[in-house]
């Protein structure tokens, strides 16, 4: 591998001096030297300090990684009053990836919190110079996202609607306006563009230095040439770090090591998984040419996979190619500071061609520099933040997916709040490190997956789009049969889950249909297939493999487990053995940390079932609240049990036919709803049968040891033929639940939603013993709720020709946005589009949320805005009777 060394400072090397001093570990290394005033100032002070200054023996927080993220976390901790902070950098500040970043600051992101984070960054960068005296190079030049296709334009409209709802200024402009703003661009093939005046760019090294100065001036210590070798632990908590220059004791450790974060994560016991992988990233810088000035906005041409920004009279153009090159699968070379990889023009060519097509003047622009700087990417293109579930006190902020500069300011703030309060800030779940499990950790998995995620910056993403790479990581025992039956799989936590069946009867004709179909914002290809599955559940009996669900067992010898669960659950858990109950697990604010079904298998033995996404997070919540005396044991049995769901009106007939009449009827008279029983079905013993379904239909969940699952599935099919049994997928279940107005964890429920806000009052027992969130709920009961889960039926939506709602659409009421939809889908029985979402009623003057009354919902005139078009909607507090 050819490596080039540049130091120190920004990517944009203005003067290059060659020296013949090869590094010892590779003879082909070339060294460049460059000085900039800013870097020198910092490095001289820091360097000289370093030599004398010994490491402190202890600190409250130790941050590993002196890039822009680490500096921002340090800055914000200090700003919020935690100044006993030490930042350790293994080489020198900003030497990893910060220095070669392109410095774009875009605010629109895939999820609301990330947009907020970047929005905060822009404000911070604009004001930081006043505070620290060091400029961030922030320039609010605006940005423009161009659309070449109608679908892209639809996507921009959806983004714009969501952005406006958040209060971000943005404008959809015509190709003519594009040409007027940037005459250099070719516009004859454009459909339009999204103009964001508040976007801009910053100088990466300057941002970092300004943050570093802000932190050090408040008392944060920064040490360079100090590498964290291991993170020390005791009693399952972080207690310090071991470095090449001695140990530092600390309460909190923050891994801000960027593309080194995965490796650093492995250097603690237990290891912390930070699923990210480096990819090469290319950009070229040109010399100045006419037509370019510092007013040039950042131009993104996602259909051409590239971006262009002004750089000292010329432009900087790079992109996110469809065939990215992952690197460093087997580790990052030592001493990779201020270094680049060999430039690959052939690889860059397609992006360059697109850039020249869009801006023809580029053809005559002289090349000043061509860079290949590796950056880290995550399996879902969203940064990784939060407290590691494996190790309390260990925080991670890494995996910026080429958006480090844009995110840094806000990430620092979010992390500082998170560390200080101990709880994730509202809405942080999409970034939360607990969304990843063991299945996301292997280097091979990451290497495969980042090849797909890097292009996601610019590839048009359609609703319900699934990842295609690094699949079939976890499969249920019945997977091969489902696949044969034409299942179109989706992925949740690495687990393959059938979304729908392309041909539920037999034969392979439709096997590949739908797997390859292009996405759409309108009526999806699976509409008919899911309707058939839906009807099966309404008329006969459907069977669904739900093995991906998270399953835990909690046990104790005495009744400690009851006390333990009483404290965690808002519902009464001291129920008769054999009962299945539904309960939330709430945080101190009364918001959902988990929403689960709990079966009492024995007096001191509970079985907890929750959403697939909760495998890590649910476990961590349970684990965190375990009594310290070790009297309660929890066990993650997600991988031990497969789960089959039979649901529909004939499910009882099916269940009766399967099992001995004795177990079904005489013993307990019937198998009443919400009960649990261990029984033999077919040849499979120890089947935990529970009479409930997740979708509001009559149904049974059957939890079976994995090895028996295939047998049970085949047996159910054999016996079920008489009752018209059919495979159904996750989409059918989703549509059933939508019509019943049942909120789902992940989509609708999150830590800032309380049970009272989403009609889950029946699952809250305020009068039982103390539980977490009780006081918040009591208060809310008294005051009333300030947001409310509402079901909307769209009145005049044309199924065939209008774009569909998919969740994330703004809800309008008398000229203002009162909320966003969280789930959406077509009601096959109601024959209407259904949106579920939370409605708030902010005071027009103060912006404070007011109490939501029933009248506000029932009397209000609501509109749902889908990609710019408003549809009037009937709001319902309770779902209609079906």
């Amino acid at each position, binding site marked *: 591998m*050819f490596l080039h060394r540049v130091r120190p400072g920004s990517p944009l090397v203005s003067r290059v001096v060659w020296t013949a001093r090869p590094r010892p570990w590779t003879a082909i290394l070339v060294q460049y030297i460059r000085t900039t005033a800013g870097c020198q100032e910092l490095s001289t002070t820091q360097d000289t300090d370093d030599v004398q200054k010994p490491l402190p023996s202890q600190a409250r927080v130790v941050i590993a990684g002196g890039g822009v993220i680490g500096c921002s976390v340090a800055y914000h901790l200090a700003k919020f009053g935690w100044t006993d902070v030490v930042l350790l950098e293994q080489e020198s500040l900003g030497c990893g990836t910060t220095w070669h970043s392109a410095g774009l600051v875009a605010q629109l992101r895939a999820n609301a919190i990330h947009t907020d984070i970047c929005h905060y960054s822009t404000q911070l960068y604009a004001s930081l110079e006043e505070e620290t005296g060091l400029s961030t190079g922030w320039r609010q030049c605006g940005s423009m996202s161009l659309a070449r296709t109608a679908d892209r334009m639809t996507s921009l409209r959806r983004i714009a609607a969501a952005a406006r709802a958040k209060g971000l200024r943005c404008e959809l402009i015509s190709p003519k306006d594009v040409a007027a703003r940037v005459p250099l661009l070719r516009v004859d093939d454009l459909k339009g563009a999204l103009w964001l005046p508040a976007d801009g760019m910053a100088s990466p090294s300057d941002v970092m230095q300004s943050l570093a100065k802000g932190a050090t001036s408040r008392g944060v210590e920064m040490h360079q040439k100090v590498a964290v070798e291991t993170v020390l632990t005791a009693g399952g908590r972080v207690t310090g770090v071991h470095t090449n220059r001695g140990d530092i004791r600390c309460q909190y450790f923050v891994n801000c090591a960027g593309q080194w974060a995965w490796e650093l994560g492995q250097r603690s016991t237990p290891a912390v998984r930070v699923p990210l992988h480096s990819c090469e990233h290319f950009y*070229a810088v*040109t010399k100045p040419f006419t037509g370019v000035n510092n007013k040039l906005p950042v131009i993104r041409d996602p259909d051409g996979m590239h971006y262009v920004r002004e750089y000292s009279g010329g432009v900087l153009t790079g992109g996110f190619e469809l065939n990215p090159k992952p690197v460093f699968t087997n580790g990052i070379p030592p001493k990779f500071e201020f270094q680049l990889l*060999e*430039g*690959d*023009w*052939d690889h860059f*060519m397609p992006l*360059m*061609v697109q*850039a*020249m097509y869009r801006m023809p003047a*580029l*053809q*005559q*622009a*002289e*090349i*000043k*520099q*061509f860079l290949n700087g590796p950056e880290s990417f995550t399996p879902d293109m969203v940064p990784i933040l939060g407290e590691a579930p494996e190790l309390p006190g260990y925080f991670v902020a890494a995996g910026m997916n080429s958006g480090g500069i844009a995110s840094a300011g806000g990430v620092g703030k979010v992390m500082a709040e998170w560390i200080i309060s101990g709880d994730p800030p509202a809405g942080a779940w999409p970034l939360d490190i607990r969304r990843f499990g063991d299945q996301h950790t292997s280097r091979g998995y990451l290497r495969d997956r980042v090849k797909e995620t890097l292009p996601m910056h610019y590839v048009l993403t359609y609703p319900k789009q699934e990842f295609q790479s690094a699949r079939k990581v976890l499969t249920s025992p019945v997977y091969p049969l489902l696949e044969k039956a034409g299942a179109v799989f989706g992925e949740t936590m690495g687990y393959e889950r059938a979304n729908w069946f392309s041909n539920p009867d037999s034969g392979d004709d439709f096997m590949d249909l739908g797997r390859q179909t292009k996405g759409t914002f309108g009526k999806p290809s699976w509409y008919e297939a899911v309707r058939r599955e839906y009807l099966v559940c309404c008329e006969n009996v459907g069977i669904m493999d739900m093995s991906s669900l998270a399953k835990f067992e909690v046990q104790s010898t005495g009744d400690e487990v009851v006390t333990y669960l009483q404290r965690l659950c808002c519902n009464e858990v001291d129920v008769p053995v054999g009962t299945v109950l539904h309960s939330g697990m709430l945080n101190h604010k009364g918001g959902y940390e988990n929403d689960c079904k709990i079966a009492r298998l024995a007096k001191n033995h509970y079985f907890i079932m929750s959403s697939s996404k909760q495998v890590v997070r649910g476990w961590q919540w349970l684990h965190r609240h375990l009594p310290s005396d070790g009297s309660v044991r929890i066990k993650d049995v997600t991988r031990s049990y497969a789960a089959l769901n039979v649901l529909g009106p004939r499910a009882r007939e099916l269940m009766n036919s399967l099992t001995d009449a004795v177990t079904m009827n005489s013993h307990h008279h019937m198998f009443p709803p919400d009960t649990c029983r261990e029984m033999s079905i077919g040849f499979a013993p120890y089947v935990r049968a529970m009479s409930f379904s997740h979708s509001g239909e009559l149904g049974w969940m059957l939890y079976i040891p994995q090895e028996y699952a295939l047998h049970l599935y085949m047996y159910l099919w054999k016996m079920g033929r008489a009752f018209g049994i059919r495979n159904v997928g996750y989409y059918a279940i989703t549509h059933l639940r939508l019509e019943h107005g049942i909120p789902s964890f992940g989509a609708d429920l999150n830590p800032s939603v309380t049970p009272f806000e989403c009609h889950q009052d029946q699952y809250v027992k305020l009068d039982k013993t103390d539980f977490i969130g009780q006081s918040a709920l009591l208060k809310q009961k008294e005051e009333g709720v300030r947001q409310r889960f509402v079901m909307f039926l769209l009145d005049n939506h044309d199924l065939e020709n209008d774009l569909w709602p998919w969740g994330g659409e703004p809800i309008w009421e008398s000229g203002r946005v009162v909320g966003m939809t969280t789930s959406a889908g077509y009601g096959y029985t109601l024959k209407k589009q259904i949106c579920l979402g939370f409605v708030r009623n902010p005071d027009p003057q103060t912006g404070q949320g007011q109490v939501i009354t029933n009248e506000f919902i029932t009397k209000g005139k609501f509109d749902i805005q889908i990609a710019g078009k408003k549809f009037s909607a009937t709001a319902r507090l309770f779902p209609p009777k079906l």
Partner: protein
Amino acid sequence: MSAFALPARRQAAVSGLGTLWWQVIWRGRGAGGTPTFHVHSRAVFSSSAQLQQYQPPGSFPHVHRSTLAKLTPQQVTNVLRANDTSFVMDFDSPVHRFDSNQLASNSPIEDRRAAGRCLYSGDMLFGVFDGHGGCACSQAISERLLDYIAVSLMDYKQLCEYKKSMETSAGRAEAVRRFNFANDYATEESARRYTEGLYKFAREVLAAYDDEAEAEDCLRHAFERVDEDLSSEAQTKLPNGQINFEALQAAYAGSTSVVAHVRGADLYVANVGDSRAVLGVQREDGTWEPRPLSSDHNALNPSEILRIRGEHPRSESTYVVKGGRLLGYLQPLRAFGDVKFKWKKELQMEVLNTAYNKNLIPVNYYTPPYLTAMPEIIHHRLTSSDKFLILASDGLWEPMNKRQAVRHVGEHLTGNHRGTLRINGMKTLGDMNDILKKRRANRSSEVMDQNVATHLIRHALGDTDDGIDHSKLATMLTLPDEIVRLYRDDITITVIFFNSEHIASLE
């Protein structure tokens, strides 16, 4: 037993049947039919021998139609790689590594190859020998030529040492440490004769040691001496008074030869016949330039025709090279062996005609010798932009030209990077795009073989406009013995990679 698939196009051409059927020819080859070359075992691997393992049982000595018998990609790869070898130099040397491979068309293969390091000087020697009229001559040359060259190039001190070693060592005193290829073998019966010849040569070189002799002269001397020894040994009867058939066969058959000699940054290529040496030079912009270091000694080379005509009376000029062949018979215009174009008529009558009991003298044979083993020698001073040297028999050069071969090797060498493009001062993005487009147009398909010689063979046989076509490749490898020679010759390739850093240090 072996079977061969023949695609429709080929079959139509061969048999005149315009059918779209695949034709499989099953041929019985009983145990008695084993070719004699197997006696020396460590058999020369021929593609047809390799294919036997893919046959269903049963043998039918008649034409049978079937759609089977096409090779899978893995089988193709197995066939192509059967003889490949790669050596990496573990000592400091201007040669970094070399890759070599052979694919037979004739059965047994008539090509030979050799590589070695001179024990006394550390020089490197590589040879590719394309035999004709059997493999006896190329086999002999491959066993002998490198030693003769090594001895010929020794300085006085080395010669003395070598002489001492000749006298003290019981067996054969090594002048060259050879790299052994998987399908190499040595003819033990002749070993004594070869050693005697070599010792005699060494003593003579020492006796007539010329301080002033250039490397070119030494190489020339060695070539000629080997050819003379072949010739004289064929005339020498065995102690029992019988003809030495081994020696006679080696002299009666013929062989071309291309030999590369690397001493520091000095590269000498000595060529006899129509094999080729091509140097791969990397240009500043990373692209590849072929530099031929040999000229073909065949009828397509006007200076060769002029040379031959000049050596014989004007009256013969219409016959000496006729129909692109020497006297209408022989394709290469220089060769080792082939004494029927070298010996006087009387000698031929006495030795050859007696031995083979028929008249073998070519028509229009008036003023022998018509053929010579005098090599044409090209000296090249290596620079750090000279990355590799391809030595290959004409089997490669028929389907592939020098430019393609050098590009394939160059791209194989640089992997995906295809060389670094430098931004020199005034280049615009538009210029860069033009360069890249040109490079892209020249890009070959993905690299499947680690061994670059195998990579070349794969391309030589399988290349189409859209890259390597598996069915074409499979067809080329399954042609029946009777016709395979019409489509491809024996291919032998040795690619020598130079150690640029070592060479740069010599500059």
